[in-house]
């Protein structure tokens, strides 16, 4: 089930994140933002720009380089009733936070039988392109999906970026909030007023009867491009954005696959033990004996991310590889090679970050 899109004006994904944070900080004095560089002149690509000038230096501040302790600080502040937003310029650095996130944040409500809650938002930006390389390009959602007690969201549109951020801030649980750097300049319709996009509701972005394409984060954009390529050969793809990965709206995905009989899952990460594995396993459990279906998965190549452009191009799925894989599912042959220009946001990205 999808939550309704609200009317609004066109702003970018980055502006939507800024607006969501600012409105929540206005609403609730317990909300604060911290992390490396959030109060510098770049303001985390504008998403936290000058929030300290609006709300004071205690509500948008830089930190020492110590992700482990700062995650603990976020948890401690949350235990005291505050609602911290901890920002990481690259998701790769979350590996330094795993003990606090997995052993404490995810478990405190349970271990202490509801005596405490840990309402923290971990903003994690996934990097890509212009030489980000092996340690500035990783997306670890599957690590967090594995752990009971954590919520994981990966909004793909400006509308959902704002709405999910507001929902994450208001949530009484730890939320891993994944943003993709390649989505930052994308514009879309975003309501001016505050609104929450509830977790656990996948969005059906395009309707189609031939193949279901489930795509995560930036891959949603590529899947929509693939959908246009597929139209040219008479294939109607139903593109679904789960929006939140934990909780995961399998009902919407399974209903679509039950109808189309074909599913391509395109993750913005590796396939091995990834979100795509989980979605496929749940589809199997849900549909076996009820509906035969064909399935394929795409994700990062099973290598670390290379830095040089020609290899990096091979590392990621794109509109053409998604379209080809979907075509193969429908036609049972790979005799079609669609041509598409490189994604605009990737071609135009000139870094350095």
């Amino acid at each position: 089930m999808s939550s309704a899109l609200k009317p609004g004006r066109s702003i970018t994904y980055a502006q939507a994140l800024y607006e969501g944070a600012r409105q929540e900080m206005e609403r609730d004095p317990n909300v604060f933002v911290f992390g490396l560089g959030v109060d510098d002149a770049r303001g985390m690509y504008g998403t936290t720009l000058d929030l300290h000038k609006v709300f004071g230096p205690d509500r948008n501040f830089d930190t020492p380089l110590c992700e482990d302790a700062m995650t603990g600080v976020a948890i401690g502040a949350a235990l005291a009733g505050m609602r911290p937003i901890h920002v990481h310029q690259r998701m790769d650095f979350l590996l330094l936070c795993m003990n606090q996130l997995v052993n404490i944040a995810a478990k405190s409500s349970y271990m202490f039988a509801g005596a405490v809650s840990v309402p923290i938002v971990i903003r994690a930006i996934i990097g890509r392109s212009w030489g980000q390389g092996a340690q500035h390009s990783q997306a670890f959602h599957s690590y967090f999906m594995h752990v009971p007690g954590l919520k994981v969201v990966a909004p793909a549109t400006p509308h959902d970026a704002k709405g999910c951020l507001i929902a994450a801030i208001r949530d009484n649980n730890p939320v891993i909030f994944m943003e993709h750097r390649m989505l930052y300049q994308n514009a879309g319709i975003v309501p001016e007023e505050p609104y929450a996009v509830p977790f656990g509701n996948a969005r059906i972005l395009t309707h189609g009867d031939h193949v279901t394409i489930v795509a995560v984060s930036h891959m949603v954009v590529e899947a929509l491009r693939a959908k246009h390529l597929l139209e040219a050969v008479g294939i109607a793809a139903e593109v679904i954005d789960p929006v939140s990965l934990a909780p995961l709206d399998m009902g919407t995905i399974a209903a679509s696959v039950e109808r189309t009989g074909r599913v391509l899952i395109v993750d913005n990460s590796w396939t091995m033990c990834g979100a795509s594995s989980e979605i496929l396993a749940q589809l199997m459990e849900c549909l076996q004996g009820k509906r035969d279906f064909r399935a394929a998965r795409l994700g990062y190549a099973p290598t670390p991310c290379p830095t040089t452009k020609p290899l990096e191009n091979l590392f990621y799925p794109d509109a053409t590889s998604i379209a080809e894989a979907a075509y193969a599912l429908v036609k049972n042959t790979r005799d079609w090679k669609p041509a598409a220009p490189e994604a605009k946001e990737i071609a135009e990205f000139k870094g350095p970050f």
Partner: protein
Amino acid sequence: MSSTRESLPGLYRSLYRIRRVEEKIIEYYPTDKIKSPVHLSIGQESVSVGVCAALAPDDVAFGTYRGHALYLAKGGDLKRMIAELYGKADGCARGKAGSMHLVDMGSHMMGTSAIVATTIPQAVGYAFALKARRAEAIVACFFGEGAMDEGVCYESFNFAALKKLPILFVCENNHYAIYSHIRDRMPHPDPCERAAVFRIPTERIELGDTLLIREASARAVAAIRKGEGPRFLECMTYRWRDHVGPDEDRKWKYRPDAELDAWIRADEVARIGRMMDDRTRAEIERIVDAEIADAFAFAEASPFPGGEELAAHVFRS
């Protein structure tokens, strides 16, 4: 703060109560009703008792899996603690925590962690929130000297000092991380020196002296309440029993018997007890013994949690 003489019965009650609770746990352990690893505080009671005697009820304590002493000294509910050790529904965490994760929010005893040093940054974060709200309360953060091997400890000291947060760091130096001596883990085993690097004022209290710990804590707490930022206490102490479990551990030969014997001779429970007349002491012991018997009976009578409890509290609504 009441004078030393007036407060002695309170200190003795707290020391004796913790000691007797743990002795009862040892006594009951062979029944296998306590299905939880226990990290006993026997020998280390004076640190929790001395520091907590200098805290106000609203002050917040963070501790470790060796947490029985702190939980009780901070005012945690005894019945719910024993029920928790029994895995019962009336436990302080409905049986989902056990000995290593005691919690009592009513007495501002935050849940303890079994991962060494992990609660230190949370204590700092809690102190950040208190400062942001200009609250009167402060945080007392207890950890063993083993935690000072962990990197997050220093990240936390740094941030607490940087932001001048209202937090008292209490290092319970019992010399051993399981069976590994501090001198085998640090090139220069001096926790105070390490904290002082962050310009945090430090004080070491030798021999586990309850009264000196209380006095040092009171000085530190007063400075913290004035807004002077974090303070660090190193309380020398000694664990009499094995790292985990109810037994003595002389058979493992990792520490000299004479070292243990010297600490046992300096027993703070007995020493503080001797400062009172026999009648006062006997009365305290009678009341505490009855309370403990009640707590164990309460735990015995409490039901185990129902199956529906398995899925409860994974998320907060």
